[in-house]
């Protein structure tokens, strides 16, 4: 099986380009004239979107993963890139959200085509491209150390976005985030060392052949999971996330909350479903599910209590990340032919997608609200619906998906997860999912009720906002809703190329 999986496939070059094109964009950004940086960045992200969609199409058409052997060297000596069904879907998601964010961020951060180069646009666009490249590598990477480099790239790109504003609070949030992220990476690296010491390879395809309960493998996966959980902000290691995501400028928050935390989450998925021999992870999977359940409840309750919109949306991310971790007990406990054919697997991926689109839309809307009325205090939202109807519509649609009301991606995800937990007789996860939905309804209505009410005095918009920016945010919310129209059954696409563990 290994040899057949280990050859460059047609279309494999797409994976190299998906990693290299954002890097070319970064290098170009620092060498072109100050007035050209926006279009260089946007053009790079347009090419990236095309590459990610082409990758998705290639995986679907060939019904097989794309593989590229870098330098022509075969693992374990060399490095391979490999994109299977789920990775292709996530790459396309990233490409789309980053491209729309670029449209939203155009002309922001004091960018002045006539003036000298300025710090904030330069940093924003550089880091946006870097996050894109790092995520592409995380989705395509096949070697655990190569993935470590990708994780560090992601961290170094994300942290400066948090402190872009430069205020004391954002500096502290960025520093706290960096400390968590670095501690997470070094634990991950420790796991990499243990795996190399035991198996002499870091290639996930080669490693997926391991059978049996081996102490070194279990220790390594425990260490790496602990590190990645810190980076994903899973409860109780979530404390860094709300100040960091709420303190960043809206366009950056959208990327951090919708995409960056998903990078480390994706690696946990890979470790648990590609590396861990079946049957070994039951206790651990339930433990992850328990932390996820804690995140859903604690995150939602804290979101309910926030006075400011951006903090509320950030705490909502803590809660929505929690749902993702229900995949572990539900997919391993399923009786489907493989975890990847289970309802929970598709439900979890839908949750990831729906949250990414809805949350990016929500943060962009929060930024537009701030521009419209000069603050984001929820108790001052009366009459917002008249001042900024498109933005309030965006928040409504994104909110529907976060709550999980039909029709929306959030509904489909939660419905599939509910069905999975009831089907497996694990009703306690269903209770968590329903409770989380109710709490989410609470915090979404806290925003929408005042926004739809009539103001005591006619309010005025402080600043006009470009229609294209409002439409950019709206388009993401609409996608979050449209995901709800996909069929409510396991997607074969998400099982393509998974390294299915068959008992020996």
């Amino acid at each position, binding site marked *: 099986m290994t040899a057949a999986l280990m050859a460059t496939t047609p279309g494999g070059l797409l994976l190299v380009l998906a990693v290299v094109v954002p*890097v070319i964009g970064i*290098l170009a950004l620092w060498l072109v004239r100050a007035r050209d940086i926006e279009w260089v960045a946007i053009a790079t992200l347009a090419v990236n979107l095309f590459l990610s969609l082409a990758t998705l199409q290639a995986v679907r058409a060939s019904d097989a993963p794309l593989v*590229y052997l*870098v*330098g022509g060297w075969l693992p374990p000596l060399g490095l391979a890139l490999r994109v299977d069904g789920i990775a292709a879907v996530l790459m396309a998601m990233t490409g789309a959200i980053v491209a729309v964010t670029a449209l939203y961020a155009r002309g922001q951060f004091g960018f002045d085509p006539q003036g000298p180069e300025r*710090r904030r646009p330069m940093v924003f666009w550089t880091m946006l491209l870097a996050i894109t490249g790092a995520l592409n590598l995380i989705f395509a990477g096949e070697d655990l150390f190569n993935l470590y480099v990708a994780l560090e790239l992601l961290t*170094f790109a994300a942290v400066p976005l948090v402190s872009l504003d430069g205020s004391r609070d954002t500096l502290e949030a960025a520093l706290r985030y960096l400390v968590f992220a670095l501690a997470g990476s070094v634990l991950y690296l420790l796991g990499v060392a243990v795996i190399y010491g035991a198996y002499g390879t870091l290639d996930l395809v080669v490693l997926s052949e391991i059978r049996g309960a081996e102490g070194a493998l279990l*220790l390594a996966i425990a260490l790496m999971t602990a590190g990645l959980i810190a980076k994903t902000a899973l409860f109780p290691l979530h404390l860094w996330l709300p100040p960091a995501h709420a303190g960043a400028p809206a366009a950056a928050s959208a990327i951090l909350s919708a995409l960056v935390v998903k990078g480390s989450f994706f690696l946990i998925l890979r470790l648990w479903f590609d590396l861990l021999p079946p049957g070994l992870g039951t206790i651990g999977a339930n433990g992850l599910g328990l932390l996820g359940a804690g995140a859903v409840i604690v995150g939602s309750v804290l979101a309910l209590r926030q006075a400011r919109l951006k903090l509320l949306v950030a705490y909502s991310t803590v809660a929505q990340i929690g749902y993702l971790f229900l995949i572990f007990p539900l997919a391993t406990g399923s009786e489907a032919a493989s975890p990847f054919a289970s309802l929970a697997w598709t439900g979890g991926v839908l949750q990831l997608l729906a949250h990414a689109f809805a949350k990016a839309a929500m943060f962009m809307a929060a930024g537009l609200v701030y521009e419209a009325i000069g603050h984001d205090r929820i108790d001052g939202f009366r009459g917002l619906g008249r001042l900024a109807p498109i933005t309030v519509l965006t928040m409504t649609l994104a909110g529907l998906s976060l709550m999980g009301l039909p029709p929306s991606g959030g509904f489909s995800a939660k419905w599939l997860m509910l069905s999975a937990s009831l089907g497996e007789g694990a009703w306690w996860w269903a209770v968590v999912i329903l409770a989380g939905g109710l709490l989410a309804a609470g915090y979404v209505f806290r925003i929408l009720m005042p926004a739809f009410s009539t103001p005591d005095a006619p309010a005025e918009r402080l600043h006009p906002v470009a229609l294209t920016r409002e439409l950019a945010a709206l388009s993401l919310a609409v996608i979050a809703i449209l995901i709800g129209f996909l069929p409510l059954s396991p997607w074969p696409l998400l099982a393509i190329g998974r390294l299915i563990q068959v008992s020996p």
Partner: protein
Amino acid sequence: MLGLALDLLIAALVIGVALWTVRTRDDFAAIVGFVAYGLLLTLAWARLAAYDVALTEAAIGGGVTGVILLRASIRLKPVATARKPIGARILVGLLCAAISAALAAVVLLPMTPAPSLAIEVRTHLASTGLGNPIAGVLMAYRALDTFLETVVVLLALFGVWSLTPDAAWGGRPAMAVPAAAFGPLPLFGRLLIPVGIVIGVYIVWVGADAPGGKFQGATILAAMWILAMMAGLTQAPSIGRWRLRLLLAAGPIVFLAIGLAGIPLAGAFLAYPEALAKPLILLIEVALTLSIAATLGLLVAGPPDVTPGVEP
């Protein structure tokens, strides 16, 4: 037996210094402790016969990291902190001890034979034209890691620059040490810098076949540049200068160009045509050395704080 006694001494010293670094109340003492830790680790690396790593650890882990920490210690005020409650300390201590014990078990119960890629590295080394196996891993087998690492280094510099005060964007970093504070430094610098440059270039040059290489050599070059800046022999450059940016980007650009040329010429990204492998790798190493030396130097210099056009 004598060797093992030496190893035991080194290990005990490393652990002792590490404990002291964590436990001391004084932040400055902790920094000094860490610098000593870096130097002692270099000895451990040499005893493990990993001379390339020992050089890297000495130059980067101990050297430049130490300089940057000392830079911070000059600018930071000590903060008084309370110790955590004893219960938390015991709980965390037990958890950490459990992790150490699990790792120790993995160390004491190794796989036999020990897994290794040494034979595979040796088998294919001839086709790269290199004599140093580590250079082979970094520049051929795992060239993608190395390429991305250069991007990481560059991105870290942009991250440091992102903390520039808005008004100073495009300006230059003022070095932390006032030139007047070091009387003999300029003279010392004038004597040392040429020697250092020769050593740095030599380490890069032999890296293809013997212990050494671009990161180690670049660090020494960077150190000479830092010394020159601190001694007031030269100023840190303005970050807005196009030529500086080209210097920083040159390494990744050359690496990427040769890597992409490998697609039509050698059948894969980052593959080298066999006849040209060694010269191409050397070309990449030269470009990377210059870029990395400049990047490391600027990382130590820190973000600009001198507004462009305004001299203090």
